[in-house]
């Protein structure tokens, strides 16, 4: 096979040879850089921890977006929606034949890892201080760490279950590097009435609409009313204009001009929605019928957005 297709026409043979060498060098460099940055390379340097009294059994299993189905079947769809890149699985056993499985899911960004973590975290979860945040329940401990979502499951571990899970969690966290933080935008949700740990990142089809690509949201409970605040970050203003334009069309307001400012939409599926567009952000309130409370929460939301600028 020759690399003729890559060569520019009209060059002398010596020039062509020089260009050929240059292309090879560029290819080599790109290949090396690519492999260093790839999740596979990160995975290669990651070492599953040793935990006292436990022995790693079997090979480390690896799954990519094409094979994740083999491990979690239909559950893979949700992980793929959060730009899943690689899963590494290690299994451990102790002398009593109790078992622990450590799953490390790597996602494209820490925001996507937060997204999938937030989908599975219950607001009432028993939180623990591992990684950015984690929680533990019977036979399971999950935590967020940078672009990794770590899930540890135990089996037949008896009354020491949580101690064992924590020992594994600390061991894994110790080998993962920089733990990162929650996406900074979650701080813009006003504290008043917010359901603790209800913040989520929805990676696709926010509100059930493919044109609203992604959003952050949080749940609120005020005087017995349950509602949701959300914020969408566009790539740029044009992206926001496009999303809003499509939303207006969806709710039968396609003749309305799409300009920055407030909107009240009557959505057949979600009821009345108030939202605002400014710059690269669209934010709004869902499932709140009380206009007074809506106004209060828009004010609080916008104060936080100002602070975050």
């Amino acid at each position, binding site marked *: *096979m020759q690399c003729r297709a890559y060569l520019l026409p009209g060059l002398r043979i010596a020039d062509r040879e020089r260009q050929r060498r240059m292309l090879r060098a560029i290819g080599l460099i790109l290949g090396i850089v690519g492999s260093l940055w790839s999740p596979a390379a990160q995975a290669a340097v990651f070492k599953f921890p040793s935990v006292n009294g436990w022995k790693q059994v079997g090979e480390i299993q690896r799954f990519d*977006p094409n094979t994740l189905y083999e491990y979690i079947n239909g*559950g893979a769809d949700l992980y793929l929606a959060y730009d899943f890149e690689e899963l590494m699985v290690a299994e451990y056993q102790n002398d009593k034949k109790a078992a622990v499985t450590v799953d490390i899911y790597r996602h494209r960004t820490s925001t996507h890892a937060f997204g999938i973590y937030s989908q599975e975290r219950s607001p009432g979860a028993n939180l623990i201080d591992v990684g950015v945040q984690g929680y533990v329940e019977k036979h399971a401990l999950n935590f967020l760490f940078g672009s990794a979502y770590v899930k540890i499951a135990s089996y*037949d571990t008896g009354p020491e279950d949580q101690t064992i899970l924590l020992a594994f969690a600390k061991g894994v966290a110790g080998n993962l590097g920089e733990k990162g933080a929650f996406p900074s935008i979650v701080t813009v949700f006003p504290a008043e009435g917010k359901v603790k740990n209800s913040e989520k990142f929805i990676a696709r089809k926010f509100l059930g609409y493919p044109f609203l690509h992604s959003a952050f949201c949080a749940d609120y409970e005020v005087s017995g009313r349950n509602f949701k605040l959300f914020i969408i970050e566009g790539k740029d203003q044009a992206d926001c204009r496009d999303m809003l334009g499509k939303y207006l069309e969806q709710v039968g307001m396609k003749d309305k001009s799409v300009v920055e400012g407030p909107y009240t939409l009557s959505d057949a599926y979600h009821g009345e929605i108030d939202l605002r567009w400014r710059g690269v952000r669209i934010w709004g309130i869902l499932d709140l019928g009380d206009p007074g409370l809506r106004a209060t929460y828009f004010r609080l939301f916008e104060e936080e957005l100002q602070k975050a600028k």
Partner: protein
Amino acid sequence: MKRHLIGRRDFVKTTLAGCGGLLLLPSEAKAQETKSVESKGKERKFVYRTLGKTGLKLPVINMGVMNSDNPNLIKAALDSGMVLLDTAHGYMGGRNEETIGSVIKGRPRDSFMIGSKVSLPQDRSTGLYLEGATTEEFLRKLDISLKRLGVDHVEILYHHGVSRKESVVHEPVLKAMEKAKKEGKIRFAGISTHMNEPEVVHATVDSKFYDVILVAYNFQQQHMSEVRSAIARAAQAGIGIVGMKAIRGGHRQTPTVQSAAAALKWVLQDPNVHTIVPGFTAFEEMETDLAVLENPKLTEDEKKTLQKEASLTSLYCQGCRQCLKQCRNHLPVPDLMRAYMYTYAYRNLALAQDLVLSLNLPNHACEDCSQCSVKCSVGFNVSAKIKDVVRLKDVPSEFIG
């Protein structure tokens, strides 16, 4: 490198295999009826079938809630005329059942039905249960699910993700199901399977224990005719059949189907399938399903689309992994078949080469055997494909874009 994508003879052979029996379906269900339903203020006529001996009358499409965290989407599905919400103890770490709970709160209990699933620890490589797979653990999970859902019973509780006949009759699960039925926590005992489906379905019929089977069934399955026969036998025995993975092909991710409606209709052409529970996360997907619910008959154009797509599936390994035990040289055959798929179906040589290089293959893979010991379950000429695709090892990476 000599390029021959798919030989003409191979193409014809695999295409015929892929299409085999695709449209040779029994006539549509006689036991179906059309019911006028108020769907978001409009009157629509939806097709209903009876879920075997359970006697439950269900629209032929219901909602697989699995990946939806959107309460308004679930509300819309119920308000539009869907009845059965399909979920599981493990979906979204339990948040899926909680979301359903928030939607059904306050709705009349006879206006919706719930199918949930409980799994117990299995050995991943054999599909057999581990020691901790006990009656108590099963019932503990069921109680948590009922609490999350905010109900005192579910219509169907499935024994989740069964892939072996031995697991179908795992005594602790049968005891748990019996107890749950007696206590009124479940109305019907079900079993779900998305791997080795024919064996599981036949074992389920033989067990005479279960009322409902939730089974992966779609036009792209290579072993579709075996699944179809097993389903027919189960339906004949009075077991209610719920189809899943009508659009996606089970434990592998297929490229997006060209027509979701056609894929759904294909399953519903089989009168032995009583309902299906496709997952959706967008309102437009729900509207597609509702349109099929009104008219599940395949059009001529849809039939052509399905035939064309089915011919492509012949490039995909079905992941049965039987070859792993058969290969004398212990080659990672499913991975190599995946590399072959990347090369010829996805036309992604870089991905294929990355995979081939990561497998640490011996030199001259397949060259040492005079006769291949692998008998592929879908008839792939495994050694020819391996010899073909391992040549990527020798191609300099910079030539592969």
